[in-house]
């Protein structure tokens, strides 16, 4: 049975986030051939709208209002309710990002619907779509179905492959003037802390440091390696607690849960809380002086050695091969 599915696209610093394309792919699976309508909130989003069409959306609604250029819970709830009222979708997909986590439960409560959060894969099973999501910090998984009403899910970035881009695809990109008012929370300022601009939760490659980096300066070689690879820098709780880096970099049970293609753990012992945040990464490299460190138990490749010797060599080697190719 085909379903009309709505996808909320997310624009950051003028660019659509990858998770938005992944959300379109998820919507495609849920829709069983039904229409996929993408929504963007803000102003001047025509180009982003076209990109969503190229990635598989059939139509795009631009919910336009000056108050929507910055995210606010109230503003987005109001705008989306108006789009939902117009479109009457049977499915709704958001990214499981800071925005999606804040917005989706609120919207689900308003729509009196179920919500399956943090989905990492999905499959058809008869009439239903079955969604897989990690539980117990990734130590187990559950498969869930929506038993009643709207099929509403958020998807974890980096897990569901987006569809092939097809620039010949065309579809309507239409503005909808929405009414937004009485915002009860006002963003006064945003202090950028994420240093490289590569977001941890969406990064394809992460270079992470633990207590073994020994100081704030100790993160420099890691940052250099990350720069060569276009990677994000992360850290274990140990490194954050020791004030070697900001808590915003923390990966683990408390902190961020990440699933990059490549995770390079440097001087991280592999406490269970840290493993909870990264053990589902596709490929894990561990660099640690202690051959008994438990990080090696989840690593695909390990080098037993001093990170201050190994990491700079690795940076050089990557520079060499990446320049050649």
């Amino acid at each position, binding site marked *: 049975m085909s379903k009309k599915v709505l996808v909320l696209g997310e624009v950051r610093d003028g660019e659509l986030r990858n998770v938005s394309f992944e959300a379109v792919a998820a919507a495609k699976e849920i829709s069983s051939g039904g229409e996929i309508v993408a929504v963007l909130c803000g102003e001047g989003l025509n180009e982003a709208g076209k990109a969503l069409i190229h990635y598989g959306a059939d139509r795009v609604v631009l919910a336009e209002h000056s108050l929507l250029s910055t995210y606010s819970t109230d503003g987005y709830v109001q705008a989306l309710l108006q789009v939902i009222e117009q479109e009457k979708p049977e499915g709704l997909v958001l990214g499981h990002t800071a925005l999606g986590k804040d917005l989706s439960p*609120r919207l689900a*409560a308003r729509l009196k619907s179920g919500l399956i959060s943090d989905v990492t894969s999905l499959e058809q099973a008869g009439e239903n779509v079955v969604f897989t999501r990690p539980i117990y*910090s990734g130590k187990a*998984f559950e498969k869930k179905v929506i038993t009643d009403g709207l099929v509403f899910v958020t998807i974890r970035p980096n897990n569901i492959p987006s569809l092939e881009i097809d620039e010949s695809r065309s579809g309507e990109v239409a503005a909808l003037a929405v009414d937004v008012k009485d915002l009860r929370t006002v963003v006064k300022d945003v*202090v950028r802390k994420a240093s490289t601009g590569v*977001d*941890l939760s969406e990064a394809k490659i992460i270079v992470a440091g633990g207590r073994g980096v020994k100081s704030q300066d100790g993160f420099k070689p890691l940052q250099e390696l990350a720069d060569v690879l276009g990677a994000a820098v992360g850290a274990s709780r140990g490194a954050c607690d020791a004030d070697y880096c900001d808590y915003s970099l923390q990966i683990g049970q408390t902190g961020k849960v990440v699933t990059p293609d*490549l995770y390079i753990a440097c001087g991280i012992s592999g406490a269970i809380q840290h493993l909870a945040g990264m053990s589902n990464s596709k490929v894990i490299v561990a660099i640690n002086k202690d051959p008994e460190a438990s990080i090696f138990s989840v690593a695909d*490749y390990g080098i037993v050695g001093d990170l201050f010797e190994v990491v700079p060599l690795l940076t050089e080697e990557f520079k060499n091969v990446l320049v050649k190719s």
Partner: protein
Amino acid sequence: MNLYVILKRTFDTEEKISISNGEISHDSAEYIINPYDEYAIEEAITLRDAHGGEVTVVTVGTEESEKELRTALAMGADKAVLIDTEELDSSDQFTTSAVLAEFFKDKEYDLILGGNVAIDNGSGQVGPRLAELLGIPQVTTITKIEVNGTDVSIERDVEGDVEKIETSLPLLVTAQQGLNEPRYPSLPGIMKAKKKPLETLEIDDLDIDEEDVEAKTKTVEVFLPAKKEAGKILSGEVNDQVKELVSLLRSEAKVI
């Protein structure tokens, strides 16, 4: 200030997880207050000490959750409420938030605090859902909060960046790591907690029709991730190891 903290008893995920009869085995598991909810309790106590008022901790669960409520009382909360939902046939975040909303319906609250996510189920839905059902604003993943009269200044973590927000009471916030350092219950605190009020409510005590809070989602399977094969520990001169690693990442793992 009337402060409420919604908390959850969770499986300590440091525990080894196993599955029996298609469910996560709870035998011999250690239970704790969800770590993010501990930040919420600590912040509520700090705000009460600064502004006066009362901290009430509320949980939706079974009678086993009394232990975690007593711990919160021992940390310094004033009162506890256990909403026992054992008799409900099905339950998900829709259910829990609807039950909580019913509880809060006739309460006077200035600030409701919770963790931004529970480490067991990890969906982070109940806080924002409750805020919507109560018709109050929310700020999630907060790392700093200052209350001045009814004005509230907040810093929240947004994927590593810090967002500074102005809002006002009544309000619901969810705690992110970095908000504070939760205290351990002191021995006198533990003694005092035994005498603090802990009220238990059943579904029948609330104005709830079971059909109205029936879950909208269902878990059909629980499974453990496939065991990872032992990784490859490289050997030889460090220079050669590095070269081999880069080559393996390109040719074998194909991630670079």
